[in-house]
């Protein structure tokens, strides 16, 4: 099951980040990505961030979710 909503990086500790979307927070491993910064967005699959998006890149997808009122 793929969850496509980009999640914002709230904090980073070592190889883990707390990420947030729509009020939900979870801890994601950063083993599969590089150069993650606070405020970036990540796509998370099975507990691992698999891609990093800038806020700009995430905007289009986030706009779709906003229209869906998720």
């Amino acid at each position: 099951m793929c969850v496509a909503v980009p999640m914002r990086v709230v904090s980073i500790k070592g190889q883990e980040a707390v990420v947030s979307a729509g009020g939900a927070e979870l801890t994601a491993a950063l083993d599969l990505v590089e150069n993650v910064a606070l405020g970036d967005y990540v796509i998370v699959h099975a507990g691992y961030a698999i891609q990093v998006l800038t806020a700009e890149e995430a905007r289009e997808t986030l706009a779709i979710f906003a229209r869906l009122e998720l």
Partner: protein
Amino acid sequence: MPLAWQGRPLTFMEVCGTHTMAVARTGLASLLPATVRLISGPGCPVCVTPVGFIDHALALAALPNVTLTTFGDLMRVPGSTSATSAGAATAFSSTAASASPMAGVPTPTSASWSTGRASLLYAKALGADVRVIYSPREAVAFAAAHPAREVVFLGVGFETTAPAVAAALLAAKQRGLRNFTVLAAHKTIPEAMALLAGASDLAVDGFLCPGHVSIVLGPEAFVPLAERFGRACAIAGFEAEEILRGLASLIAQVGAGKPRVDNCYGGAVRLGGNPRARALLAEVFEPCDSAWRGLGTIAHSGLAIRAAFAALDAAKRFAVALPEPREPAGCRCGEVLRGVLDPRACPLFARACTPDTPVGACMVSSEGSCAARYQYGLEAAS
């Protein structure tokens, strides 16, 4: 109106369980022109995993001291052996004898298990230590916290999930964990798509390509489908709007007679994919021939754990006897997975086979074509 199409009838295939569910849930197919058909292919990882893997998992679950960890979708997939056979009941009862409050509880009757076959849920009910988890990280953490248990994770999934399992295996190795193993059955989807593109009994004009596999592999993975097989390809996200955008691209490509790989998923999909995820995949796994339910064995379509990680390979760590693989009688999941049979045309569909009493894997998994069709539209096949 980009979705308009006046030409010959077109068939497009999606190969992603999340696409399957999104299309069914939104009723999107009903919005398409009558000349455009969208079918589901082998995109549900649990569905394409052959019954022999379930048998292997059940055999491991029956071993003393094993904690089996898995994604939830695998729990109810029927294996080859009868649930009520002496073998199955004895195996799990003995596992549970000392540890479980379920020990000694009578075997569930076949009436509550549609096929009368053992599943991981059934094994758990009989006392085997089977746990549903969200991430392979949890299995590694559990192994670290419980050094006396043998923790096995069932590695099922395409290139989206396999990097996570690779990362978990690498982490376990680096931590020196001796009680964590993976039973791996990972598969790579482009090889299956190439097989279907070349199939004589299936005329697919284009593929809706899975968004997150594309994040990992990059759009290049699908270029042979366009260049060698002349099929239109569009990488799409998972919301209805994104899927429609992908379909519009496919129609435009066919109309122009110029098949290519169009990225309709935006910035997340980059040339070269995710280099770090790909490097981890290559470090931990190597390509192998792999058996797919419905498609047979496809060369280089699987990911086997490399020799350097053999100590973490459950298939090598534990010697277990496996039954002859036996698919449920009358089940036509294979044809559904190849896109040649609409779920509603299967004689078992919504009769013997329902989400509560699944016969085949496509009805078990929430991402399966049959489950999607059952949940979101039971009208007769047209």
